[in-house]
Every structure is written in structure tokens, then in C-alpha cells.
């Protein structure tokens, strides 16, 4: 093999990479907060919500979980404008990630809600709480705590999946790598560097989520 590795371009192009990393972080921050919120709502709707809402949410969840993220992204970015809904590439990427994580976290959180002992609901009701108050004050936090590790993994998966938003020209880390390789013709090096950054981001994100978990769930859930 006569190929000589050259990372000299890093000196010139590191601002692009930095900008890409920041965009990726922004995407996953918005995606995680709104996506998990949407997931909580959908999980409530599917487990305890009104009967007309259940099939609607179920259809949404099944549709998203059984189609590739790339196609969801293309549908939102290229497809929706023909309905008169024109979106910028970052907005489209954000929406796609929220919708995607919403569906996956719905199923994860629902599992947490369903693992709640029946007595908790009954105890809430006996304190004259409405079903929604019981959900809000009694059921929700321990349910989230139960499935927090699974939810964290899903957030990391969505962060890694966000690399495809470069395909609609959202300027994330992968976009930066593509840009650099088209300028320097150092494709392998550019992708190796960004792959390693993704690996670090994944490890970092997992740690952040552990810390966030410790913050939201200071006490051990009563079982």
C-alpha cells in the first residue's frame, strides 16, 4: 500500500469541523428534549389516553418505526413543500429527529408505564387525584427512571443517525467531512477524523445522560 496519510488539512479546516460538531449537538439537544416530550405524551395517550387517540398514536408510532430515517427526512424536506409547507434544512432536520425519537421513546416509556404496579394508580385514585394527576405526580417519574438506560441508548442512536441530515444540506459534522473531502481529496482521513469525533460524542452523550438521569431522579423509586 503506497498511500500516505495526510492530516495537514486539519489546521485549515478545523473551524468547519467545529461548526459541524456544534450543529450536530444543537440537533440532538433539540431532538432529545422535544422528542422525549413528544414520547411522553404519546406514551400517555397509548397507555391511558382517550380511546379515539390510541389508534392515531399507534399508527404514527408504527409508521415511523418501520421506515428509514432518511426517507422520513426526504419526505419532510422534499415532499412537504408540495403541500405548501416550505422548511429550511435545519428546521426540517430538527422536525425529522423529533418525530423519529418521539415514536421510539413512546414505546420505551410506555413499557415503563405498564410496569407500574396497579396499586400506584389505585393509591392515586384513593387520594382523590384525577387519572391525569396520578399520571403526572405518581406514575411518570418512576416510569421514566425505570427505562432511563434504554431511553439514553435511543438518544445516542438518534444522534448517530443524525449524520444523514447532511443529505439535505444541513451543515452537521458529516456535512463538514463531505465538504473537506471535496476540497482536499483526503476522503479517508476526513471520514476517520469525523468518525472518531462521533465516537467521542456518543461516549460523552451517554455520560451526560447518566448525569441528567441522576439530576431528574435523585431518589430511588419506591417499588
Amino acid at each position, binding site marked *: *500500500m*503506497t*498511500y500516505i496519510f495526510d492530516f495537514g488539512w486539519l489546521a485549515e479546516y478545523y473551524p468547519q469541523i467545529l461548526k459541524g460538531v456544534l450543529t450536530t449537538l444543537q440537533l440532538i439537544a433539540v431532538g432529545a428534549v422535544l422528542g422525549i416530550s413528544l414520547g411522553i405524551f404519546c406514551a400517555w395517550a397509548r397507555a391511558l389516553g382517550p380511546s379515539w387517540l390510541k389508534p392515531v398514536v399507534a399508527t404514527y408510532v*408504527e*409508521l415511523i*418505526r*418501520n*421506515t*428509514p*430515517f*432518511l*426517507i*422520513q427526512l*426526504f*419526505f419532510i424536506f*422534499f*415532499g*412537504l*413543500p*408540495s*403541500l405548501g409547507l416550505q422548511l429550511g434544512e435545519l428546521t426540517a432536520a430538527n422536525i425529522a429527529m423529533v418525530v423519529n425519537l418521539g415514536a421510539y421513546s413512546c414505546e420505551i416509556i410506555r413499557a415503563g408505564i405498564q410496569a407500574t404496579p396497579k396499586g400506584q394508580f389505585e393509591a392515586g385514585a384513593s387520594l382523590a387525584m384525577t387519572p391525569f394527576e396520578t399520571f403526572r405526580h405518581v406514575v411518570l417519574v418512576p416510569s421514566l427512571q425505570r427505562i432511563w438506560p434504554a431511553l439514553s441508548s435511543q438518544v*445516542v442512536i438518534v444522534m*448517530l*443517525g*443524525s*449524520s*444523514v441530515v447532511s*443529505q439535505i444540506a444541513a451543515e452537521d459534522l*458529516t456535512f463538514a*467531512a463531505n465538504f473537506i*473531502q471535496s476540497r482536499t481529496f483526503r*476522503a*479517508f482521513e476526513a*471520514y*476517520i477524523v*469525523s*468518525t472518531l469525533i*462521533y*465516537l467521542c460524542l*456518543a*461516549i460523552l452523550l451517554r455520560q451526560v445522560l447518566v448525569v441528567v438521569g441522576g439530576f431528574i431522579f435523585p431518589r430511588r423509586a419506591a417499588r
Partner: protein
Amino acid sequence: MIEFSTWDILRNLLLATRWTILLSLVSFVGGGAVGLLLLFLRISKRKAARAFAKYYIELFQGTPLLMQLFLAFFGLGLFGVDVPAWLAAGMALVLWTASFLAEIWRGCVESIARGQWEASASLGMGRLQQMRYVILPQALKIAVPPTVGFSVQVVKGTALTSIIGFVELSKAGTVVTNATFQPFTVYGLVALIYFALCWPLSKSSQILERKLNVAHRNH
């Protein structure tokens, strides 16, 4: 301008679906074989083998599949080989699938009670014999639902190969959109075809899981 009927669009998409299915099958079977090898390394008695498998899994699960595809596409080229997209796509997907299947199966193998290992060891079985005759037959039963469930991820993963230029369903969607200027219809149909491929797999995974749980409760 040529007019395209919905049937024209659908026919072209369905023709490209063949390649999505073929690539999914290759990735799943290849990934299964490499995954089994990784599983043996992961639960081996040798520390180095365990560490290798652990870092392999960490690396492939901790980086985007898209990056792995790019690296396979451009990395193989470094050796002076002209890499066709299908080869890079197949290779990256096999390695990626293997890392997930190995980890799923490890969970299944470790859920087998310790006593089973000890009992088979006391019958004088070697490590391979223990796996072949005692552990794997039991682990297999637990492993089927999550494995079928993961196959959905493989089918969806093949969509990314369109980005390195492998012509399958997603790429066909882009090509057809560029010809017809009907992104809403085309990507809607593409999504529906993926759904038709993945949903039966998801559903059967759920059903298998329920069946298995029932069997478990009766014991």
C-alpha cells in the same frame, strides 16, 4: 414533458426494491455469521479475545453507519482496488449488523443459568461442545424475537447505502423524483414499501416474544 402515471413510479420503485431485499438478506446472513464469531470471542476465556470483541462492538455501535459506509467505500479504495458501491455497502452492513447481533446474542447466552454450564462441564464436555449441545439450543429460543426485531434495523439501514451510490429503493426514489418532480408521491410510496417490508418483521417479533413469554410462565 413526459407524463408519469403513479403506476410508472410504483413499478420502478418495486424493481429497485429487489436490491433492498437482496442487500438486507446478504447483510443479515453475513452479519449473523460474523456476529456468531464475535459472540464466541466475547464470551471466550481469553482476555484478549473478550477485549477485542468488546471494543469492536463499542466501535461499530458508537459510530454512525453512514460513516462506516464512507470509510468502507473510500478506505478499500486506498488499497488500489476499484470498489463498487455494492461491495462497500455489503461489507459495511455485514460488519455493522454483526456488532449488534453479537451483543443481542450475548445477552441471551448469559441469561442461561450458570448451572447449565457447570452441569455440562461435569459431563466432561469441552467449551465448544457445551455451546453446541447445551447452551445454544436454549439461548436460540430466547434469541429469536430480538433477532427478528433487529432485522428491521438492517432493512432500514440499507437505505443509507443510497448515499454512496448503491441503487436500491431509496436511490430509486431520488432518481424517480428527479424525473417526475413529484417528491410527495414518490417518497410517500417509498416509505410505504419500506413499511410493507418492515412491519411484518416487527409484528412477528412481537408475536414471537409473547408466545415465548407464555411458554416461560408455564414452566
